[in-house]
């Protein structure tokens, strides 16, 4: 048969695609990629990545493409709601916005006038924390935080205290130059697309990737080498790597002397020796005198005793050279063969030192020394909740940073690089503030970084000033608050009862709480008078979530395509190591429901309450809505929510408000970006070109350069430990002394995760984890018609060993039991898994009636939450106290400390526990969907 006989219909290969493309920022997750929204006939037709955008450079993940379905979800709330049935029932009536704002104001005004702390305002993974925290500060309550306390504060705080910034979205590996990359405990992370893009680049260049994770999926599946570590033992593993590197002298001595506090002298209390100006002292071998660390031309000593003082490095070397950290000593606990640990250490050393890179970029440090080139150590690391969501997570994250520093690979070509406005040392961050005055704002920002026990939020009698007990001796450095303790503390009236709980974008009666069923009970529990123990709950959500059913008053939010947002340098910006950038969202389509952007509603509520900054002298509102605020609010003179196109539209960083600013952003693809000057791109903490540039752009509250040293040894932590040793004015309660002494160690240590130490390991032999699926965002994804077809159920994956020893077969069910409870769930086999680990996808399980799904949706029948097994408190130790299931340093929720046992169960109709059913205030979704039909 020849070609001429082939019949081919004529095709239009050039059909029109869109009437208009509007550029904005994705918010299907917190990665904040730039998107091109194609509109046709007034409707969203197609969303693609914005090629010019610094975050995603054109790519888009599954969630981002599925944004259409989220935007059109049948679960979208339609109008403000006032509860009519009991809490949890989902019975509401729709009310007007005026009524909603008046009701909220009538609940909140008396609180502010009498006892502002009786409002607890907590927000989820929103990206307007600079607004919400400011609002809470103006209201005057100390009880504000976002969700970081249960998310990743270990990572954040360890990063800030050690390096001046965390992994996470505040820095990234030098994807273009690194040659060996190790990734610890990451399934997705906030830097979702950039990590994938980066891994792709490494693959193209043939760089090696080592994945450290008990589970070998996703990034760990493509890694060239997999370290199937036992959960909770990364600290040991890392310290064994340090041990090896020290022993072999494979550390960057020059870098340590120049950029870290390795040479800083410790006095007999383990505090830094300082001169009269408060400058840390080092021992100069040239002059045999103690000199301030920043003096040019020093030859610092790294060991020895000088006038009773020894350099930090000596303590460090002594600790990690100990046989306790030899690979052989940790191998069994880590589940990693000693030979593998040794080889990885060798590979790190080889790549860092034998494959050193040098770029012809001169730079000048804060001592005034000009370096003719910029040297780089092409080894880099990234880590996330796999190491941070453990009760020893803070110290583990610290250990990893110390490893990076010993290799000389932070802020150098090929290593880990910060994204401006990071790095920022602790000294450039505020301290926490707690002082309330009825009718007045709080005395300062809520969240900050304590320098010592004097910064704790404690009353004279030792009780906590904050409802979540953040910044107490139980978790002194809880820099993100402890949202996971709010409901249980408020329910218990401990440290005090509250009147109003106000939450935003956090599904607290479901996946974002530990002990979910218990939390549901606390939210519905009543006192003797028949009042709810937590009297009033105001909540803002965009969708009919589980939490909506447990609130009294709902502010319905818009979807991300329908509102203004600003992704601000004052908050969590979208920068890259080479560029500073921020972004906006704007209504690319108008909502046809009676909904309002939450930030607008919040500003309007603030005006009704007469809050300073939101109300003019005459009592009128300062800002009509969030757009108005974004354009006109100034935090400091010239510094506003958006850094780009200020003043006459050409000023960057600082400048007068520009009424055309948002239009400028729109025209520029919804973002603004300015490149870091060439000579400022590396060694940012000590690079004066960077420091000057950063101060000019307004990154520091002081508006002056703030060069600093990386902190191998963290003095503020030592101050708490010292208190526990009995020194100093502020003393911890007796029962905490021992634990503080052990865990508040200024050099990274490892200790057994608390839950593991508290239970009988032979009874609960397994570790239970969750992972984020790339194609789902927490609980939001399940309302998405496309995404839920991918992840509609979440079996518990068990290792081949567990599978066989329990005689499981395909389709089997099992009961999974922790010290706190039992769930019954479907199981599946996975061999590429640490033998003692089980895991499941996070937040797939749904409550019946939520999210406009059918009652028998697989998410409700086969899906489940592991959260039912995780308690916010540790099992009783017999000391009469219930200790919190958190990291003792930061209060980070220890999700991944969970220990369980498993047993075969008879097949079930649905998973248990059963959590009842809620009425849907928005009805249910349609029976079929043919999105796009109008255009085909």
């Amino acid at each position, binding site marked *: *048969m020849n070609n001429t006989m082939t019949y081919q219909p004529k095709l239009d290969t050039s059909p029109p695609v869109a009437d208009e493309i509007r550029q904005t920022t994705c918010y299907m997750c917190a990665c904040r990629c730039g998107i091109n929204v194609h509109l046709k006939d007034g409707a969203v037709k197609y969303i693609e990545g914005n090629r010019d955008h610094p975050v995603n450079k054109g790519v888009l993940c599954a969630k981002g493409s599925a944004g259409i379905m989220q935007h059109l979800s049948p679960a979208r709330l339609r109008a403000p709601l006032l509860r009519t049935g009991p809490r949890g029932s989902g019975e509401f009536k729709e009310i007007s916005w005026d009524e909603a704002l008046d009701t909220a104001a009538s609940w909140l005004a008396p609180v502010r006038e009498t006892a502002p702390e009786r409002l607890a305002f907590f927000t989820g993974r929103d990206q307007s924390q600079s607004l919400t925290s400011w609002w809470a500060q103006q209201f005057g309550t100390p009880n504000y935080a976002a969700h970081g306390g249960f998310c990743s504060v270990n990572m954040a705080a360890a990063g800030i205290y050690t390096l001046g910034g965390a992994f996470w979205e505040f820095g990234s590996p030098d994807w273009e130059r690194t040659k060996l990359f190790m990734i610890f405990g990451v399934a997705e992370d906030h830097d979702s697309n950039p990590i994938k893009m980066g891994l792709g680049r490494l693959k193209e260049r043939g760089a090696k990737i080592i994945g450290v994770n008990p589970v070998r999926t996703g990034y760990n599946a493509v890694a060239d080498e997999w370290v199937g570590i036992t959960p909770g033992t990364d600290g040991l593993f890392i310290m064994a790597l340090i041990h090896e590197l020290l022993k072999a002298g494979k550390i960057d001595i020059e870098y340590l002397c120049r950029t870290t506090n390795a040479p800083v002298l410790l006095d007999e209390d383990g505090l830094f020796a300082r001169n009269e100006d408060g400058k840390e002292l080092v021992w100069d071998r040239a002059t045999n005198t103690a000199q301030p660390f920043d003096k040019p031309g020093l030859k610092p000593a790294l060991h020895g005793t000088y006038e009773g003082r020894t350099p930090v490095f000596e303590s460090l070397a002594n600790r990690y050279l100990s046989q306790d950290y030899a690979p052989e000593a940790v191998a069994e606990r880590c589940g990693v063969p000693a030979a593998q640990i040794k080889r990885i250490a060798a590979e790190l050393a080889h790549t860092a030192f034998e494959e050193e890179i040098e770029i012809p970029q001169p730079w000048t440090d804060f001592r005034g020394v000009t370096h003719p080139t910029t040297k780089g150590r092409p080894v880099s690391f990234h880590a996330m909740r796999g190491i941070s969501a453990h009760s020893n997570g803070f110290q583990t994250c610290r250990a990893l940073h110390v490893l990076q520093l010993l290799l000389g690979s932070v802020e150098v070509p090929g290593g880990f690089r910060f994204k401006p406005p990071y790095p920022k040392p602790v000294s450039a961050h505020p301290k926490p503030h707690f002082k309330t005055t009825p009718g007045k704002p709080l005395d300062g920002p809520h969240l900050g970084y304590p320098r010592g026990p004097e910064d704790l939020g404690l009353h004279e009698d030792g009780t906590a000033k904050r409802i979540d007990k953040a910044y107490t001796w139980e978790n002194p450095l809880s820099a993100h608050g402890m949202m996971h303790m709010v409901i249980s503390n408020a329910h218990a009236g401990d440290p005090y009862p509250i009147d109003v709980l106000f939450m935003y974008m956090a599904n607290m009666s479901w996946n974002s709480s530990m002990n979910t069923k218990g939390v549901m009970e606390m939210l519905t529990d009543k006192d003797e008078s028949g009042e709810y123990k937590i009297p009033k709950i105001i909540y803002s959500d965009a969708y009919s979530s589980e939490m909506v059913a447990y609130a009294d008053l709902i502010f319905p939010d818009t979807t991300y395509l329908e509102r203004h947002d600003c992704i601000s340098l004052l908050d969590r910006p979208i920068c890259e190591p080479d560029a500073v950038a921020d972004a906006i969202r704007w209504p690319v389509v108008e909502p046809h429901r009676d909904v309002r952007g939450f930030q607008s509603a919040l500003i309007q509520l603030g005006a009704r309450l007469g809050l300073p900054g939101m109300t003019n002298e005459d009592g009128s509102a300062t800002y009509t809505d969030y757009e108005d605020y974004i354009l006109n609010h100034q935090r400091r003179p010239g510094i506003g929510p958006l850094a780009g196109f200020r003043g006459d539209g050409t000023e960057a960083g600082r400048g007068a408000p520009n009424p055309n600013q948002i239009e400028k952003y729109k025209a520029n693809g919804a973002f603004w970006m300015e490149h870091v000057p060439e000579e400022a791109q590396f060694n940012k903490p000590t690079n004066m070109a960077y420091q000057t540039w950063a101060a000019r752009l307004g990154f520091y509250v002081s508006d002056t350069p703030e060069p600093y040293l990386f902190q191998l040894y963290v003095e503020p932590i030592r101050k708490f430990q010292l208190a526990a040793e009995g020194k100093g004015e502020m003393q911890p309660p007796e029962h905490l002394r021992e634990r503080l002494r052990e865990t508040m160690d200024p050099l990274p240590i490892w200790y057994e995760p608390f839950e593991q130490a508290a239970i009988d390991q032979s009874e609960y032999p397994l570790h239970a984890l969750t992972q984020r699926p790339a194609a789902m965002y927490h609980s939001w994804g399940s309302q998405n018609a496309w995404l839920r077809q*991918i*992840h*509609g159920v979440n079996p518990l994956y068990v290792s081949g060993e567990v599978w066989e020893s329990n005689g499981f077969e395909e389709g089997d069910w099992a009961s999974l039991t922790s010290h706190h409870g039992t769930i019954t769930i479907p199981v599946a086999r996975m*061999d590429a898994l640490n033998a003692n680990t089980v895991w499941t996808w996070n937040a797939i399980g749904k409550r019946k009636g939520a999210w406009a799904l059918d009652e028998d949706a*697989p998410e409700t029948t086969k899906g489940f939450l592991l959260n039912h097994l995780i308690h916010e408190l540790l099992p009783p130790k017999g000391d009469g106290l219930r200790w919190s299931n958190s990291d003792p340093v930061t209060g980070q929720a220890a999700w991944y400390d969970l220990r369980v046992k498993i047993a075969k169960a008879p097949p079930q109709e649905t998973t248990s526990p059963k959590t009842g059913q809620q009425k849907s205030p928005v009805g249910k979704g349609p029976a079929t969907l043919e999105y796009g039909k109008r255009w085909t």
Partner: protein
Amino acid sequence: MHPAPSIILFTALSGLGFGLMVWLGLMPGDKGAWVAATFCILALALASIGLCSSLFHLGHPERAWKALSQWRSSWLSREGVIAIAALASFSLYGLLWVTSGTPNTLVGALSAALALATILCTAMIYTQMKTVPRWHSPLTPILFFAYALTGGALLAGKVTFSLWLLAALGGLQAFTWFKGDKAFAAAGHTMNTATGLNPDAKMRLLEAPHSGPNYLQKEMVFRIGRKHSQKLRIIAITLLAILPLALGLLFEVKHMLAGILVLSHIGGLLVSRWLFFAEAEHVVGLYYGQR
């Protein structure tokens, strides 16, 4: 494969119908006009009901006529064209027979040939499927012929022929099952060849692309338990061959018994046809962890 009732009915009934046409076309015997008419109508009815039921399987039956266009390359198209030709030719044959009282041998032979060709086309639709190793075998058309001719013989009342044929069919069916059970492995398809991954590794599906069902799984990845299939095979072969054969050999085949024989055979045919689909493993199952 998913044993869709419309397809089972289609292949079973049209096979019987065209099989009957073969016998009527080649060995009409002497029948009175009414008897001839009854037989012819039966053959036409079975074939057409079968063909019609196949339309139920179509997403767009209203466009079914388009299926006649690709006779040069597509067995399904050929089947449509030839079936229509067979039906037309056999209708003419029947008409002539009933009206003239004598069958026209030439038209009869032509009809029989077209009927055989139709059966071949039907069989080839399955035989050509390399994706279903159990079907991709010369045994498939042979078996389809055997079924059609045996059923046709039974319906046509050709007792002696049908007894021989029943015996042959029973053996052939058993042999086909026996060979079919090995076909997938013999074709050499594994998850490793399907994915091109390490040929020496043990492979499992860890996660299906969707937690929900999809068209492919429903249509192609139907799975039947071994025990269940063994049971059904015994039932099928008993009904389709052993029972009719035993009855036919032990008793004289009269009206009542003939009816029972035919019904038993058709029952067996339907079960075996169900198995033909249900046991047919499509290679795409490899991507879904089947096998």
